[in-house]
């Protein structure tokens, strides 16, 4: 029987968020939604700020917040190298409030692109709590 799972690694420069066998991964790339299944062709692309969906072999699914980065597929393995990433279930009110406060304090020194991407990350996380 052909193997229908692949190894998914999601890491940010600080730590590995996820490293396990999964059935599928859906995320938003620069050109729209992209889905990865087992034995995906060699691919490398930019990932947009998005809520990625991961499906485990038993059909259970969960979500990961990805703050942009790169995704690379090949050799039945998909690696998401995110600028920052967090399991959606780990997003909490308190840490989000602190992050929002830090963003507002630093708003003046951030350039437009950075301020916009940070705002999108905050809104995405905020939508998970509301």
């Amino acid at each position, binding site marked *: 029987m052909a193997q229908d799972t692949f190894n998914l690694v999601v890491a940010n420069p600080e730590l*590995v968020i996820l490293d396990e066998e999964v059935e599928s991964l859906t995320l938003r790339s*620069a050109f729209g939604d992209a889905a990865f299944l087992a034995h995906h062709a*060699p*691919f*490398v*692309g930019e990932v947009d700020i998005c809520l990625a969906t991961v499906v485990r072999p038993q059909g259970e699914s969960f979500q990961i917040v990805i703050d942009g980065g790169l995704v*690379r597929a090949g050799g039945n393995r998909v690696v998401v*190298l995110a600028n920052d990433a967090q399991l959606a279930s780990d997003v909490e009110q308190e840490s989000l409030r602190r992050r929002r406060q830090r963003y507002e304090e630093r708003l003046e020194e951030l350039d437009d692109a950075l301020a916009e991407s940070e705002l999108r990350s905050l809104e995405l996380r905020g939508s998970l709590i509301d």
Partner: protein
Amino acid sequence: MPGGKERALRGRIRSVNSTKKITKAMELIAASRIVKAVGRIGGARTYFREMSELTRELLVTLPSYRPALTRTEAATTVLILVTSDRGLCGGYNSAVIRAYEEQVRRLDSPIELVGIGRRIENYLHFRGIESKVQLNGVTHLPTLDQAYSLMRPIMERVDAGEVGRVVVISNRFYSLGLQRLEETTLIPVDTSAVVDGADDPVAHFDFEAEPSLETVIDTALGQLVVAEFFGLLLEASAAEHAARQRAMKNATDNATELVRNLTRAMNRVRQDAITTEITEIVGGAEALAQGEHAMSGDER
């Protein structure tokens, strides 16, 4: 009065003992922080390894492309000096300062300084040297945010052709017993080291890239630089805790030795005092006995 000297020594022993308690506590705190810091280095390794691997494969796939982060036309060098905020960590900071002075002597191109930590801030301030950016409160517990906010503006200036080299002078952590001061060139990214594994069979990838190979290479190199810099900060943090633990262990050992010597001196003084007292008593008793003897002789 013989008791005075003994009392003074007892006071010194008490003072050294309380200093010893503090240094011992600092040693234990540093030891527990090393464990955490080493754990963070391990956590960050996966991203760095994967990103280096990906960059290598991308550069091998498109050897004709020369990204901005690998070019070296601009003359200006940015020196990032990583020190601690607090002292009591042996030669940790002075090694960075020595290496900086050496670099200044060696380089004939313009230098811009980025100081990390209060120690280098004090040093530069004292000598009236201006730093472009100064950031404190980093090596205690470095965050990814700090690495991004420091590196982003520098990389923009590299892109704009204003900066040609970025060198970090910091303490590297190899193991609990081995930390070493090193100068790491972050930019230009050394592609010869990255592409060295080109004979490796997995290196011959035929990628489909989105939006384009060039864009992905630029992004990957940028992220690689940030990840490497963050890794250096994490190592500097672990090395600081290790240096502090070692310094505090030496201080505790010295205090123990000092207490032993002082106790010995105090015992000698006390013994002298006792001997003097006994001599006086015996002398006094003898004098009394002689006096009584003389008196009884007179009566007879």
